[in-house]
């Protein structure tokens, strides 16, 4: 199977050709210029760069295109292109690019302009990858979700308050209890994290001295580095029992250690650095001249912060909060360990509930085939989550834009 080795060596060969092209084109440009650089339309280095890209980009592009052709063919049961022919085609594209670029690299060739075009195509490709991936995810989600809605009425899914999957069939798969749990937990988490994070950021950026700042900021940021499973354990072992013993039971609100409150608070702790760190950077980037202007009018420090600094930093702060909200909605581990896995619609924050993400995991673990509504519902749930976060992002954009129009 030499062809396997050959395919693996292809990247090395292509990069080798690209480097060869760089060296050769640079040398040739030097040679044609002689001692007089002024006759060159571009520096020898630019000729080299152009040759490098002329090898690399067409080779990668042709490899992607040819593999796609092959895989589409295979789906239809025909081998349109052998692996061997892909290997030779890509290699010849690289070689042609290399020779062509070397031949061109003489005095008159505007290599800087040419490599500019290559770089632009590289950047476009990068953003295309990001956009296509999003579309791909959405498409696969939509595809599986339609499978689900063929078997299960969408009205029952969206409006039923009953979540009772049953792997022997006849399940009730209403999203409302899960959606409620998700929103409730996220709400508590944000209600805790946003004020704490924002106030911490204001303290750090406006009041704390240099020394305090250099200690406190990294300390808060450590919170962001703790794995969520560790937070989950903290919720399960410490916060849950604590809340039950000191609040839920004395107040007669139930005796479950797993509760929305537990998960929400612990998630809130996790989110503090998201809010505080970003807000702190944003508040710091408000120009000092703005504060001076307010202080010189006889405003106090806190008046200045409230009336000038926070409004100026608001778009960024909203962004930070929405980032935190996205994390909260997507969080799974803390919920499993802190709030439990029981779907329930209740206002009591000391009761166990669960969220969409938790149920996605639990519907897909277990050995049922990938065709029953009980497993396919995971994709409908995922789609809902996607729409939810998308809505959040759109909301953020609208808020920020409205604000910008008004002030900048």
């Amino acid at each position, binding site marked *: 199977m030499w062809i396997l080795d050959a395919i693996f060596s292809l990247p090395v060969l292509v990069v080798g050709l690209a480097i060869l092209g760089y060296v050769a084109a640079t040398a040739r440009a030097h040679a044609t210029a002689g001692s007089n650089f002024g006759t060159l339309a571009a520096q020898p280095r630019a000729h080299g760069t152009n040759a490098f890209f002329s090898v690399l980009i067409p080779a990668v592009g042709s490899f992607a295109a040819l593999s796609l052709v092959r895989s589409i063919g295979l789906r239809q049961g025909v081998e349109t292109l052998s692996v061997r022919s892909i290997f030779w085609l890509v290699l010849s594209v690289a070689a042609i690019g290399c020779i062509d670029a070397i031949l061109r690299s003489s005095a008159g060739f505007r290599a800087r302009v040419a490599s500019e075009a290559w770089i632009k195509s590289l950047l476009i490709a990068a953003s295309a990858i990001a956009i296509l991936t999003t579309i791909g995810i959405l498409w696969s989600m939509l595809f599986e979700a339609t499978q689900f809605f063929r078997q299960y009425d969408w009205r029952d899914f969206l409006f039923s308050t009953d979540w009772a999957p049953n792997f022997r069939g006849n399940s009730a798969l209403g999203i409302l209890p899960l959606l409620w749990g998700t929103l409730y937990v996220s709400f508590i988490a944000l209600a805790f994290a946003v004020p704490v994070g924002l106030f911490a950021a204001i303290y750090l950026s406006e009041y704390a*001295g*240099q020394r305090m700042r250099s200690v406190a900021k990294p300390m808060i940021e450590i919170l962001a580095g703790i794995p969520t499973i560790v937070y989950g354990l903290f919720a399960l072992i410490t916060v849950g029992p604590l809340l039950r013993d000191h609040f839920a039971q004395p107040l007669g609100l139930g005796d479950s250690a797993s509760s929305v409150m537990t998960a929400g608070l612990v998630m809130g702790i996790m989110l503090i650095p998201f809010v505080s760190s970003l807000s702190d950077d944003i508040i710091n980037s408000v*120009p000092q*001249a*703005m*504060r*001076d*202007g*307010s*202080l*010189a*009018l*006889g*405003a*106090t420090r806190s*008046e200045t912060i409230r*009336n*000038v600094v926070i*409004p*100026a930093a608001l778009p960024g702060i909203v962004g930070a909060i929405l980032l935190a909200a996205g994390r909260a909605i997507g969080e799974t581990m803390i919920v499993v360990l802190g709030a439990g896995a029981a779907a329930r619609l209740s206002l009591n924050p000391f009761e166990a509930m669960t969220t969409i993400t938790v149920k996605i995991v639990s519907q897909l673990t277990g050995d049922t085939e990938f065709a029953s509504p009980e497993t396919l519902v995971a994709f409908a749930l995922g789609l809902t989550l996607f729409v939810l976060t998308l809505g959040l992002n759109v909301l953020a954009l609208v808020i920020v834009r409205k604000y910008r129009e*008004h*002030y*900048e």
Partner: protein
Amino acid sequence: MKDTHLAERVDTMTQLKISARHVNVHYGETHAVKDVSVDIDANSVTAFIGPSGCGKSTFLRCLNRMNDTIDTCRVSGGIRIDDEDIHDRKVDPVQLRAKVGMVFQKPNPFPKSIHDNVAYGPKIHGLARTRAETSGIVEDALRKAALWDEVKDRLDAPGTGLSGGQQQRLCIARAIATAPDVLLMDEPCSALDPVATAQIEELIDDLRQSYCVVIVTHSMQQAARISRKTAFFHLGSLVEFGETDRIFTSPEDPRTENYITGRIG
């Protein structure tokens, strides 16, 4: 030299507003203002001139304690306004700044509407009780700053969207809307065209009736036109201080003469 200004104070009609004694300012290791003593009269315009970097802005910022907001900045010496030591523990810098207004060298409008920029001070200090009173103050301040005609139809537009010179006049309007006693102006006309400059000079001339105005300027003509007294700073020291006419016609110190005739700075 240090006591020239005492000799100049022959005109007892004018009242003393600000008196600074042996003021030194350090930024970390930099000695930015060196032993400056100066007396500034009420109801008159005093100009600070001198080459770039000589400490004019720094000294001006001492007068409303804006230097407090810079961590590395240390101010020593005595400054009295209305015969009250502004560094006294009883004096609240916030109150002081309401009384001693300031227009900065670089225009710094808030990212708010034109109206809200001007209404900022009055709102904080409760100078207006109703909406109508506020808009009255805003209009008055904008008129004085020669900006009203240009912005009267777009008071809700952002102040940061104005041109540089308009922004500077907005900042002037903002400062006078708070009705200070003393107005410190750091090169208020450096971004203005001749027409707006003339309007601001007219404003300063009006303000002189009731305010004490201190203005930093790089324009000798401007200093000569609007100020009664002029202080010449050089490398952090106050070189010469006296009646503007005299400073410009017969300076005592060779450095002053060199500067006003354009040989240094």
